[in-house]
């Protein structure tokens, strides 16, 4: 693990102080909301279990029931998980609305933003996102760290695909990306374009698909660290020297740590970075049900959820540490 900068340590210290002095009293006050939502969830769960039991009873009493039909009785039970996720999501929406700005106090300039938008052109140019037609940005946090603008966006991207079934052409909406996109505006301008990809889980969408237009412009980068190659399976660039300038040994260690930390914390399927012009873009693809910027769980009292809130803070810290690693605030080195 690399040594953290003094600024990051200060945020960490302030966060701990802020948690006990400001956040904890708020969490205690808001505990009743969690209790109400948990109670509603329990009612839903009870209703679903009852439905399952009733179905079982109905099948049992029916003379013509096949053994496999008993499996249908399990369906209501599956919805219990969905109900849990739904009420947890509601709890997180309420908590974020009330508490997010208190949580972000140690981050100084960071705040929850009301304008949900990721610039589409930059997103497409970065080539770390699949082709998409429309997007939804449910939440966004932005702020400035060492003079670098940082924006965390949660995003759902959709594409319209055509399928053929029974000789008919049908249009279907396909979710191509769900996860988080971090944008960083730098004081440095990169002359080339460098992309890193960590295919944690193989997806049917191939890397080549996104590079059809100018695949030959980008070359594979062979780095000295074989361990880095295990973490990032694809490293492509239009400028070999610049790619190595960006991926210096310290940065490689940082990215490996970051990728491991995020994979451990969340169910990532893909982790991608793009360095282009004045922007660093990070795309973290997660399972749609997994909320990366989740604050609290529905099951535990809010005032006992310090670990969950710390995980939220760590997500932000791990990402903004890239600014330290690359000295993105420095205006020098722009060629």
């Amino acid at each position: 693990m690399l040594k953290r900068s003094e600024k990051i340590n200060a945020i960490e210290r302030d966060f701990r102080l802020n948690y006990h002095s400001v956040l904890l009293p708020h969490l205690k006050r808001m505990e009743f909301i969690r209790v109400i939502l948990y109670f509603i969830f329990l009612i839903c769960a009870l209703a679903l279990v009852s439905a399952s039991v009733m179905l079982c009873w109905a099948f049992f009493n029916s003379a013509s029931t096949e053994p496999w039909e008993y499996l249908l009785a399990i369906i209501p039970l599956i919805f219990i998980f969905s109900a849990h996720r739904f009420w947890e999501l509601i709890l997180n929406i309420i908590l974020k609305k009330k508490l997010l700005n208190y949580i972000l106090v140690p981050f100084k300039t960071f705040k929850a933003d009301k304008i949900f938008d990721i610039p589409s052109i930059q997103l497409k140019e970065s080539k770390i996102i699949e082709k998409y037609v429309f997007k939804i940005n449910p939440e966004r946090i932005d702020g400035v760290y060492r003079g670098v603008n940082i924006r965390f966006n949660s995003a759902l991207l959709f594409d319209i695909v055509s399928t053929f079934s029974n000789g008919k052409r049908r249009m279907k909406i396909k979710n191509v990306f769900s996860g988080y996109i971090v944008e960083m505006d730098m004081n440095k301008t990169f002359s080339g374009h460098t992309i890193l990809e960590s295919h944690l889980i193989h997806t049917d969408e191939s890397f080549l698909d996104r590079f059809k237009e100018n695949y030959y412009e980008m070359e594979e980068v062979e780095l000295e660290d074989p361990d880095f190659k295990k973490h990032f399976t694809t490293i492509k660039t239009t400028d070999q020297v610049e790619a190595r300038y960006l991926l210096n040994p310290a940065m490689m260690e940082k990215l490996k740590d970051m990728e491991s930390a995020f994979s451990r914390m969340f169910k990532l399927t893909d982790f991608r970075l793009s360095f282009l012009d004045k922007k660093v873009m990070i795309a973290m693809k997660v399972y749609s049900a997994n909320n990366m910027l989740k604050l609290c769980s529905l099951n535990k009292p809010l005032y006992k959820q310090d670990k969950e809130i710390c995980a939220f803070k760590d997500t932000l810290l791990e990402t903004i540490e890239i600014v330290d690693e690359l000295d993105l605030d420095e205006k020098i080195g722009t060629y």
Partner: protein
Amino acid sequence: MSMTMIIAGGAALLLVFWLYSTYVNVIKTRNKVDEAMSSIDVNLKKRYNILPNVLFLANKFMEHERSLIEDITKLRTSALQLSSGVHNVQDKINLNNEIQKKMNELFVSVENYPQLKSDNTMVQAMKTYTDVEEHIAAARRFYNAAVRDLKNVVQIWPSSMFAASMGISGDIPYFETASEVERAPINAQNYFN
């Protein structure tokens, strides 16, 4: 046309394609070394362009380091006289190492001049110099990777066959900067005293 003819024709076509792709690979690898060398040249040029600014500032304050400044100036002049390309890599490596060593000495000496150390222009110049150094290090890594690939091509059959017939030699040195001081084992004790 008999089946044998078709198979033989297909095999011949495959052989031609394989030979051509091996040939292309050899040429590409050799050109990559040239490209990598030119990126080193570009970055070294940037360093030589920055040096006068750093030396000018240092010269104003550092009375006791005049000989060191003069040495760096001489080295810079000799480095600028070297032509670009791969043919004089060893000279470039030697001069580069010498300049780097002297510059490190200069930056260590800056510590003894608090006025210079706190001078904004000097701080900025040092930062720019460090950034250029990082670019040189990146270019060096690219060059070394290209040289490694060329050495593989020249030494491993069948590409070695083409390389030999085209007179391509893998006898190009790696761009290593480690001076004797840098190579010496680090004594952690020194950092805790």
